[in-house]
């Protein structure tokens, strides 16, 4: 019985020391291996987001109002034609 208690005590000590040491090693790995890696290889997703944002802002700033108006006009025209077409189609279907 006493022998078992001593063994349990040793296990408590050795076990806790080992668990702390092992997880401590992981802290070391995260701080000194992973964190520098993260700086070296940042997420590509974040980069593309930034690019998109930048390109949008340059567009709205750098494009002349005339071109914007032309594109708007073309889009509206296309939409009108498209809806007309679809209306015609539905009419045709209804007639059939």
């Amino acid at each position, binding site marked *: 019985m006493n022998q078992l208690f001593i063994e349990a005590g040793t296990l408590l000590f050795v076990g806790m020391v080992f*668990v702390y040491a092992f997880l401590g090693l992981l802290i070391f790995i995260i701080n000194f291996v992973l964190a520098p890696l993260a700086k070296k290889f940042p997420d*590509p997703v974040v980069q593309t987001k930034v690019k998109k944002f930048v390109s949008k802002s340059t567009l709205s700033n750098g494009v002349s109002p005339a071109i914007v108006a032309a594109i708007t006009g073309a889009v509206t025209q296309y939409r009108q034609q498209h809806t007309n077409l679809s209306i015609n189609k539905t009419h045709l279907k209804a007639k059939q």
Partner: protein
Amino acid sequence: MELLNTLWQSTGLANFVFGQVIMMSVGGLLLYLAIAKDFEPLLLLPMGFGAILTNIPLAGFTEAGGLLHYIYETGIHTGVFPLIIFMGVGAMTDFGSLIANPKVLLLGAAAQLGIFATLFGAIALNAVPGIEFTLKDASAIAIIGGADGPTAIFLASKLAPDLLGAIAVAAYSYMALVPIIQPPIMRALTTEDERKIEMAQLRHVTKVEKIIFPLAVLLATIFFLPAATPLVGMFCLGNLMRESGVVDRLSSTSQNELINITTIFLGLGVGSKLSAEAFLNIQTLGILALGAIAFSIGTAGGVLMAKLMNKFSKIPINPLIGAAGVSAVPMAARVANKVGLEANPHNFLLMHAMGPNVAGVLGSAVAAGVLLSLVG
């Protein structure tokens, strides 16, 4: 008349032994807890049903040739089922909050105190007549304090297969009781001001870090604790499948279909160990009592460590997240969040508590490895 007698002898009613009736009621109780109380239903339901099947007279479910016998021998005796479940848990785990705040790994380590301190309790129980725990039995019981079902079943199947039923029932029951067991301990060990502490927002963790982390953990385990590689290895495999992003199908299978299928069989297999002769003894009561103590000590260990870290850290740490150092993912983290909200309605600790929570999973796997290599 002879025929009638033979027919009567082949009915269950004629062959019931009192212990079997009790164990069927235990199975019924587990079903009730699962269905009516929502206590870990995924495992307690098949486990409770398994307990009923096991105790049917004449059916021979657990004898050689019986279904539950094969399920137990193939999946639990070999340790395969808990390992497959661990892979699924790995595929569900996001180490982001842990990598963002690596100090919380110390909380995951502190909460393992529950495991090692309970060893003493188990040995001390040998003073009670009728209980005789060897160091192997004591280790298998103590792992309940890790609050990690698969780890407990894995270790028990290796160190004390006879006690597996009671250990699994205790482990899963207490995991379901985390919201009841933990808060009083957390409140008793912290002051109102400590519970109100708000924590700084976590930094962004990149994909590269998340991919390298499981590999680094595996490498450290290979170097320093090969006995834990079955558990840690499967866990890291699951996690790598998740984070690599190239095998979404495998990742999704291991965290859904595979883990579900395995859970059914694991529950039934554990249920097969709930036979009258294995469960109805004073040792089971001892195991249930020790499990509760292990949980409480683990919670206290985590909270006290977090208090200590808060004293010495420049960045404030809310001691409540220490309680999440016992695994029980994500229940323990939710409890930390809830108790934190009670003290300060603007304090959301969930993400901060997930760090120690997943650290606890690693910690209990490491503790299991230590016990396996020193006692097994």
